[in-house]
């Protein structure tokens, strides 16, 4: 795609070639943004390109988010069971809710869904 544009501008005008390319990239970015308004674009900080080593950090971050959600759910369920004597209902309900919260955390951390703020942070 776009072979004719590249052929015409030739090798003696690399800057014009690059300008065309960057204009096409911008256009594509705009069109993609229209299709996925929920998805933060690549230029946003949450999606910053990662080196191989910080992929470990990213994976680690996602796993702690999930575990934290489940742990909080379990702790609250246990406390409610203890105070209200509803064992094991509170634990069952809140463990499931905690799991859902953990998955939500992971999706937010990965940038799949946007954080729950209507007023988006200014970039």
């Amino acid at each position, binding site marked *: 795609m776009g072979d004719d544009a590249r052929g015409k501008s030739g090798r003696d005008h690399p800057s014009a070639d690059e300008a065309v390319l960057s204009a096409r990239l911008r256009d594509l970015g705009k069109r993609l943004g229209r299709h996925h308004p929920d998805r933060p674009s690549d230029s946003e*900080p949450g999606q910053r390109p990662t080196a191989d*080593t*910080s992929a470990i*950090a990213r994976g*680690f*971050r996602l796993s*702690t*988010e999930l*575990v*934290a*959600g489940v*742990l*909080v*759910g379990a702790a*609250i369920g246990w406390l409610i069971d203890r105070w209200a004597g509803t064992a094991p209902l509170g634990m069952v309900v*809140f463990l499931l*809710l*905690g799991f*859902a*919260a*953990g998955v*939500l*955390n992971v999706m*937010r951390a990965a940038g799949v869904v946007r*954080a*729950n*703020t*209507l*007023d988006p*942070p*200014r*970039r």
Partner: protein
Amino acid sequence: MDPIHQFQIKNLLSFGTIGGHEIAFTNSAVFMLITLGVITLLMIGATSARGLVPSRVQSLAELSYEFIAGTLRSTAGSEGMKFFPLVFSLFMFILAANLIGLIPYMFTVTSHIIITASLALLVFVTVLVYGFAKHGLHFFRLFVPSGIPKAMLLLVTPIEVLSFLSRPISHSVRLFANMLAGHITLKVFAGFVAMLGSLGFLGWLGAVLPLGLTVALTALELLVAVLQAYVFAILTCIYLNDAIHPGH
């Protein structure tokens, strides 16, 4: 040779007991003071001879200021700048503590969850107090996503609350576990070098491998130390943003 030994807390100076718990000045406290001293010296040294053309130390301090200020502005908006002292202190403390811990024979303050949990709870309580002080009960709208049918709210709101409550846990565990795991790995591989080295000539040849890995891991740990301080700071900014703009 015990890889856990480096994390032991030793009492250096006991102040007596309160409620059955010994209150003591520990090696951890010593290294927290060293961390504070290093940061203070750096900042005082940077600002003592202010020049239009900055010296090396001055430009280091200016770079760290610009870095945190930029991060805070881009995530929490210019209103977030009132929290700059908090975020900058947290970032510098964690960064300096992580880096000091990488020096052999030094104690890593951030490898203890009690330290990272207190820092994370500090942020959590700040978010709660500021959020309720500024928005009152409107702060609860943080837990009510917009554009969701009424029947679903019964399910979604508890999930949002749990997600909010799990923040200090993931915030503190991430830093603590990264530092703990990194230091244990380093110690284990360095231990291999000593063990193989005691086997004679062939052992020396074999020890080259873990020695190279230790060098590589040290470089990786340097990256992790800086990265985790940055991650802690940026998450603080994101959480503060919720307190400043709880949405809707």
